[in-house]
């Protein structure tokens, strides 16, 4: 039974790690979305200026 408890603890650690890793990239990519959105707007505006 001791082994069983150790196994359960390890499973919790695995889940926690994946969760943490996912959250790190979620956070990064949500911010990256904002930066990219600004670049998109800027490119659009520049395009308009060049044509106009």
């Amino acid at each position, binding site marked *: 039974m001791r*082994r*069983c408890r*150790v*196994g359960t603890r*390890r*499973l919790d*650690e*695995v889940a*926690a*790690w*994946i969760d943490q*890793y*996912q*959250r*790190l*990239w*979620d*956070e*990064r*990519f949500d*911010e*990256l*979305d*904002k*930066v*990219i*959105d600004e*670049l*998109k707007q800027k*490119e659009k505006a520049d395009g308009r200026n060049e044509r106009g």
Partner: protein
Amino acid sequence: MDATNEGEHVATSRTTVERRSDCEVVVTRWFDAPAHLVFEAWSKPELFTRWWVPRSMDMHLHGCDMDVRTGGSYRLDFGGGMEFFGRYVEVTPPELISWTNEEGAGGGSVTTVTFDEDDGRTLVVLTERYPSKEALDAEGTGAAEATHETFAQLDEVLASLVA
């Protein structure tokens, strides 16, 4: 499993994380912009520093040197002696950036990110490849690796129950 299979984890997150092998972790995410803009946000220091460090981590960049070209080097300085540094193994605008991570116990890992444009959107696939399972463990990404060990332990428990 196909990492480019969009939508697999859409219900919980737009970012997917997958263990590709004992030494590899793959992160994927679609962005609603052409590849050259995603590449720009990834390769210009003034843009990169705006998104790379999550606010929840309570860490602040004191310095960021990035010479984003094949053979160039980078150094992220978080103060207090905490630095991340390495070298760009390959840079192919706007398709690919690959760099080494030379700090820390798991030093020697290589991160490769590809930008794959499709109809104005871009699929980002980021692969972290460690030289060994041990290096991956040391880097704190070992929890995912422990899955195999956990199942091995579970096997033992089940075997003992059957016996």
